[in-house]
């Protein structure tokens, strides 16, 4: 009860001040009434008694103030008072307040955004039960995710460490729910997928292992909540409906819960179907055919990851021994599935950690900036502070005031920054960076983001609030009042290094780091856009059609492919048309082992190289703009009736045959032992990633090795829009139900360039913010130093100083600090850029353009920031100035 009373009392002082006032009034009135009663009893009339009582009582307002202090001398009360005082003080210098709040809003906003992305990509788990024990399995020294179905079955059945091991493939199908064929992305999964992930259906039921009885035995479809919501309008009768998937009837079994978006962080599947429905025997039976995207499962309770790895390795050893032809390098490791294990995980983590660091630097720079603002403000207010000290205010109380001001600014700035960042994050979350894929960047802010922003705001408030503490503690009221307004800055004009100088150097150095890294990234991106891909993306159209999805099979596939090429060639303005099974840098890759001609034991470990395979039409190389270095191109005569031939790239020739010249008309062997003759050598290119080192590749004639995957490359200088329309009409005329996706090749490179683009934009924004901060920092310092030394400058001019000398006196110091900070920042930035090289293709700081750019940028910043103060210094009129004093 006592605690409650005391709490009530404390809060009453803050929130119910008016009530407390009235209670106090009533108590004092009651006192005076009682006194008047006594006086009346001694013979006075009532009015006179009350008048006397009031006089005896003394100064009521004074006592009320004392009572308030006695009662309200608690933390909340004083703080409320401090806040009111700070608000009043800030209102008196709105320029300072606005500059400070905006600086901090920018810095906190940047940090909130970066942290929210970090939070979403790294800290926030997948929406899967028990996700702490969920791992994906990676194979071999290259940490490959891909596995073949037979290997997966062995892993699943022979391990003793996992609670169900499941696998899936990312796949695109044509779904037709009745006259509306559309391409959608989803997972082909093993029957135990939902059981292993411990997911319960939102509607209907899921399929299980027991539903599978060999190839094509389980024509069942599970759709995602999002797809059900947008395409079936939450229709609950959808369960049991039969729809067409790639022209085969499938039954919709159920709907996944809304919070489940598959087992990849930014790829949301629209559907799940059992992979036993795959056409052709290759997937389910061929042990060397590794096209399962990912194997994952929960490690059993009580089993450590190390034990699980040992268990998997023993299965791997068994596989190597039993299937020496297909299986080699069967050692395993575990990784987190959300970012495709080690494929994206480390890069994303490294990049986001780097970004967080840079954002932290921005905040630090902002704090340094605000710190010097506060120090300057304290210096300006030294007379006021001295007066307050002289009048009996304690230093503690004054410091409290300064900190209240700092925290107030940091909270308002933090709130503003957070508001901005939430708006930006919502945009980011709704953004689909590459429309072709169901990619999402779900970076909605959560409680953690708000907490971090609040913490950062408070911490920075205390940080920059602490800058002027020493200054205030040293203030001697006597000295200040005696010296007047000019005396105290005498020190800063001299050669002594002040705290403000150090802060400015730190800030400029941080800014230079940011500018350096963003320039490095920009240069890298510019170069990667113009580097040699091994093909020419300009003036090319890509037409994606997967014939197997449209129901083509067997001999109808190459026939249709040939007809498509011939049809597109008749479009006016089209120079050449070709197709490939796999578009280079298109996000996918298919590789095969090749062997030297002498090899007889065709096991994986004896392979001469793992080679990118492109099954192409004769005109493809010309259409794609890939240069033929030697030999002949492919022709329509290279069909099933003629000897097997191939065009290989220069790297292939060097790897297998020693040199390019050596390779022509030589033979090599494929996985099944077929001898293939090299008839042409093509230039090297980029096939999977921009940052890859040269990889061997071979181009096989499609009439000798058929493929259903067809991406047509149409070379033409016509307007892309018109051309796309013409292409669509032509193909629709041949087969109205043919699914197709038409885009320019430059667009098609979006996926490959996505990481470096994101990195560049992010770094560019941070660099810009750093530049802005240092601009205001230098400006503040220069303007302050000029304004404080106006009188000195006036005297110098009166004594005959030239403009140059005046400028040197006024701005020499800020410029010297700028040079110092820039040099330090440039060196640090070069060190930091090494990290960048992992993400941004061809990012190197050892580039004269980058170094020159940084120096130029910093010089420009300095010039810009000191321009106005310099003008002011030069326009000093000594006469007016001296008269004023």
């Amino acid at each position, binding site marked *: 009860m006592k605690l409650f*009373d005391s709490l009530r009392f404390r809060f009453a002082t803050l929130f119910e001040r008016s009530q407390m006032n009235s209670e106090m009034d009533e*108590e004092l009135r009651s006192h005076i009434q009682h006194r008047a009663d006594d006086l009346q009893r001694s013979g006075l009339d009532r009015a006179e008694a009350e008048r006397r009582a009031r006089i005896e009582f*003394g100064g009521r307002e004074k006592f009320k103030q004392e009572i308030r202090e006695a009662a309200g001398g608690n933390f909340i009360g004083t703080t409320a008072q401090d806040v009111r005082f700070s608000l009043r003080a800030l209102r008196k210098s709105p320029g300072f307040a606005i500059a400070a709040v905006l600086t901090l809003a920018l810095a906190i906003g940047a940090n909130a955004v970066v942290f929210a992305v970090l939070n979403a990509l790294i800290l926030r788990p997948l929406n899967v039960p028990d996700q702490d024990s969920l791992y994906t399995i990676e194979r071999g020294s290259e940490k490959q995710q891909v596995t073949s179905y037979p290997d997966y079955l062995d892993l699943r059945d022979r391990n003793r460490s996992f609670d169900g091991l499941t696998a899936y493939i990312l796949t695109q199908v044509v779904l037709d729910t009745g006259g509306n064929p559309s391409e959608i992305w989803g997972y082909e999964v093993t029957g135990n997928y939902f059981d292993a992930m411990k997911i319960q259906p939102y509607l209907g039921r899921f399929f299980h292992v027991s539903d599978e009885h060999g190839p094509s035995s389980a024509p069942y479809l599970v759709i995602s909540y999002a797809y059900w919501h947008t395409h079936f309008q939450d229709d609950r009768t959808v369960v049991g409906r039969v729809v067409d998937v790639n022209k085969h009837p499938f039954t919709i079994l159920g709907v996944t819960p809304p919070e489940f978006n598959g087992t990849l962080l930014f790829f949301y599947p629209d559907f799940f179907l059992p992979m036993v429905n795959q056409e052709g025997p290759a997937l389910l039976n061929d042990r060397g055919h590794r096209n399962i995207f990912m194997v994952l499962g929960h490690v059993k309770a009580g089993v450590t990851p190390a034990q699980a790895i040992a268990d998997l390795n023993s299965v791997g050893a068994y596989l190597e021994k039993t299937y020496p032809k297909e299986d080699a390098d069967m050692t395993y490791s575990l990784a987190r599935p959300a970012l495709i294990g080690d494929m994206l995980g480390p890069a994303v983590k490294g990049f986001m950690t780097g970004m967080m660091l840079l954002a932290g630097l921005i905040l630090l720079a902002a704090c340094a900036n605000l710190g010097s603002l506060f120090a300057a403000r304290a210096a300006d207010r030294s007379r006021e502070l001295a007066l307050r000290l002289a009048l009996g205010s304690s230093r503690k109380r004054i410091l409290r005031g300064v900190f209240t001001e700092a925290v107030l600014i940091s909270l308002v700035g933090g709130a503003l920054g957070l508001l901005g960042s939430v708006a930006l994050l919502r945009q980011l979350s709704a953004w689909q960076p590459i429309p072709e894929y169901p990619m999402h960047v779900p970076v909605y802010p959560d409680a953690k983001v708000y907490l971090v922003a609040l913490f950062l705001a408070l911490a920075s408030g205390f940080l920059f609030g602490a800058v002027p503490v020493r200054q205030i503690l040293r203030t001697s009221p006597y000295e200040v009042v005696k010296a007047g307004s000019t005396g105290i800055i005498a020190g800063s004009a001299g050669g002594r290094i002040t705290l403000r100088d150090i802060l400015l150097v730190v800030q400029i150095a941080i800014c230079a780091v940011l500018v350096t890294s963003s320039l490095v990234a920009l240069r890298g991106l510019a170069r990667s856009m113009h580097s040699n891909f091994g093909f020419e993306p300009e003036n090319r159209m890509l037409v994606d059609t997967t014939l197997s999805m449209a129901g083509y099979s067997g001999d109808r596939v190459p026939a249709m492919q040939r007809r498509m090429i011939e049809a597109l060639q008749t479009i006016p303005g089209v120079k050449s048309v070709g197709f490939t099974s796999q578009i280079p840098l298109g996000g996918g890759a298919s590789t095969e082992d090749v062997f030297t001609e002498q090899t007889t034991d065709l096991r994986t470990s004896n392979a001469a190289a793992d080679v990118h395979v492109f099954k192409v039409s004769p005109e493809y190389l010309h259409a794609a703009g890939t240069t033929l270095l030697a030999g002949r191109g492919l022709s329509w005569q290279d069909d099933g009736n003629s000897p097997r031939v191939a065009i290989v790239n220069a790297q292939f020739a060097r790897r297998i045959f020693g040199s390019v010249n050596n390779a022509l008309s030589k033979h090599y062997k494929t996985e099944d032992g077929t001898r293939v003759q090299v008839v042409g050598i093509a230039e090297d290119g980029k096939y999977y990633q921009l940052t890859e080192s040269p990889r061997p590749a071979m181009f096989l004639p499609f009439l000798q090795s058929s493929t259903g995957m067809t991406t047509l490359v149409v070379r033409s200088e016509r307007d892309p829009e018109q051309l796309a329309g013409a292409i669509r009409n032509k193909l629709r005329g041949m087969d109205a139900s043919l699914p197709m996706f038409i885009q320019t090749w430059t667009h098609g490179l979006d996926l490959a360039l996505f990481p470096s683009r994101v990195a560049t934009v992010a770094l560019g924004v941070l660099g810009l913010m750093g530049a802005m901060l240092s601009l205001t920092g230098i400006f503040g310092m220069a303007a302050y130093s000029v304004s404080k030394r106006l009188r000195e400058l006036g005297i110098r001019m009166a004594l005959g100083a030239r403009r140059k000398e005046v400028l040197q006196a006024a701005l020499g110091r800020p410029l010297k600090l700028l040079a110092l900070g820039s040099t330090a920042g440039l060196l640090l930035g070069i060190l930091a850029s090494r990290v960048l090289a992992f993400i941004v293709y061809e990012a190197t700081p050892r580039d004269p353009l980058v170094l020159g750019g940084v120096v130029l940028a910093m010089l420009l910043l300095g010039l810009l920031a000191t321009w106005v103060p310099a003008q002011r210094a030069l326009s000093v009129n000594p006469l007016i100035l001296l008269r004023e004093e």
Partner: protein
Amino acid sequence: MNDQAQILPGTLDLLILRTVSLGPLHGYGILLRIGQISGNALFIEQGALYPGLFRLVRQGLLKASWGTSENNRRAKFYELTAAGRKRLREETASWNRLATAIACALAEQPEEV
């Protein structure tokens, strides 16, 4: 009026605690009681009592509640809390020690030093 002594700083709290220890009192009553028990020897400005009262309430030594006075007027009554009672005992003891010491010192004859 002139023979009244100004109270020593810090002793008002002790006086209030002592007065209220005899039973709940309102502000004016406390003032009267102090006059009574000190034989009108101590002068306290009337309004000066209240900051002390509020301070003691905040420190948890007194608790206050509204009631009706003997004059049939609404008034705020103060009484000791357990902590207040304890503080009164300690302060009384220490005051007595101090007073005795000072009285002794002043009573000494010069030649005995």
